[in-house]
């Protein structure tokens, strides 16, 4: 990510509902920079999310992982580390579940910022908690939503 883009991302986050203590850009001068975000859901449960910025962000869609709790499990205690269309997950890495957020067809690097990704992940987490309550897949909750 260029410095110009970094400043834009910071500006958007600073003017957003995300509080400064919730996020931190990590390892920015290495080949593996990422954004760590703490997200609290409506149920007041807290999750830590890692947005991987290493592969040409924003030109490639960044990988997003739930790093805490690790690993995230299904209602029945099953693994969510393999790709699942109905659960909106991609192949997990290092024991962390990888969330599907923007797809290839709706990714637009000149309009979408990390803030919007965080919002999508927040929605994903809310749906995940609905799944824990009811056992239904995320797909069923997200039907009709532009996801």
């Amino acid at each position, binding site marked *: 990510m*260029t410095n110009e*883009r970094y400043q*834009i991302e910071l500006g958007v986050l600073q003017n957003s509902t995300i509080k400064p203590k919730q996020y931190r850009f990590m390892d920015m001068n290495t080949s593996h920079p990422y954004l760590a975000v703490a997200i609290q859901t409506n149920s007041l449960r807290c999750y830590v999310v890692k947005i991987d910025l290493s*592969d*040409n962000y*924003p*030109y*490639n*869609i960044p990988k997003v992982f739930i790093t805490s709790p690790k690993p995230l499990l299904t209602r029945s205690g099953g693994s969510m580390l393999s*790709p*699942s*269309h109905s659960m909106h*997950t*991609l*192949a997990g890495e290092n024991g962390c579940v990888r969330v*599907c957020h923007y*797809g*290839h*067809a*709706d990714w*637009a*690097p*000149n*309009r979408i*910022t990390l803030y919007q990704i965080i919002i999508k992940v927040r929605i994903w987490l809310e749906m995940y908690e609905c799944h824990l309550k009811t056992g239904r897949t995320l797909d069923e909750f997200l039907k009709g939503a532009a996801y």
Partner: protein
Amino acid sequence: MEPIVYLYQNHLQEFWNSGQAQCFGAAFEWKGEQVYHVYLKYPQVAPTGYSMPCLFRVVDQAGYERADDEAAAVYRDLPSEARRVPVVIVCIRVEADNRVKSRAFIVDGEQQVEAAVKYVPRRSELYTRSKGLLEVGALEEKKVLIVGLGSGGAPIAVELAKAGVGHFILIDFDRIELHNISRHICGVNELGRLKVNAVKDAILLKNPYAQVETLAIDINRHLDELERCIAESDLTIVATDEYASRYNINARLVKLGKVGLFGRAVTRAEGGDILRVRPGGPCYACLTGNPIYHQNDEITDVRRARELGIIPAYVSDEDANAMVQVGLSTDIAPINNMMVKLALNELSRGIECGISSLLEELTYDYYIWANRRDYQFANWAPFNNNPKRHLTILRWYGVKLKKDAECMECRQ
């Protein structure tokens, strides 16, 4: 048919300047066709044909007139192992006015046949022969950067060489593979070669004096090098199939105020589009963020599409394979052709020449083409029954594309 020997004028001149009386070269013949290309030094592009020995000798006026005897004498003096195959013998004479004359003979044992001699001209003459719509050498000083040398970039490179573009930078880290062959300009005899080298050769076969720099690199990992190449070039042709590299090129075109042409075929090559990025106009990100833009590129390789995330990980191999429907070369050709026209347009800006009139017509930044009424073009009008002149197939449409005022890539 009388045999024909092709000599390279610049080789002869160098030989003459060296002051040697005799030297060996190499000749190449297509078996039985009696056409011989004769080289005094190894040419830039590997010669085609089957090789045979060749000997050059400088003769005086008398020797030139009875060159058949000279050739016979040269042949007799050759070691016996050199005489096991036919030999080409060339007698060279330089006139008082510095004109080089040559007579050539094909000698095989007792048989000696004189060949007609033809010359491959030096640089200055090569251009006068292509005198036409474009000023001689008008584009000789122009430099074009081409990123991606697949079924798009490679033919565009060769067409630009034919039009007289004199300088190229080629970037691609891929090699010619079996699945490329049906759509690529390179043939099976080049399997395994780096595309940059194979396409460089294809350029040099059209214009032996073109200057071609090759970089077999992943530009996403060499952004400084990419920036240098864009800065040095008059025009950038973006023919890569990968989003990150397109965006990386776009960012530098915007930063440096340079012109670039982005061309691609969409899924299954049912059509394609071209974007021109120029200072002050919409950038590539303005286009991809616009609803008019059809996101699905042509998918030619499952493994690559999976790596790039175009085919999501949860799609089964079977479904993924069904997504790969490679278009025909003939479906890519119209896009390449338009890319070349737009490229020549940009390169000849400010130069008086026969194609300048197009500058007033090809003023759009975005162009769309449909090959078939399929998929995204399914509701286009039929070609043959279209009284209201709706959008139809097999013709270009220019689109007025607005700059995205909010675009994070190009807003000031």
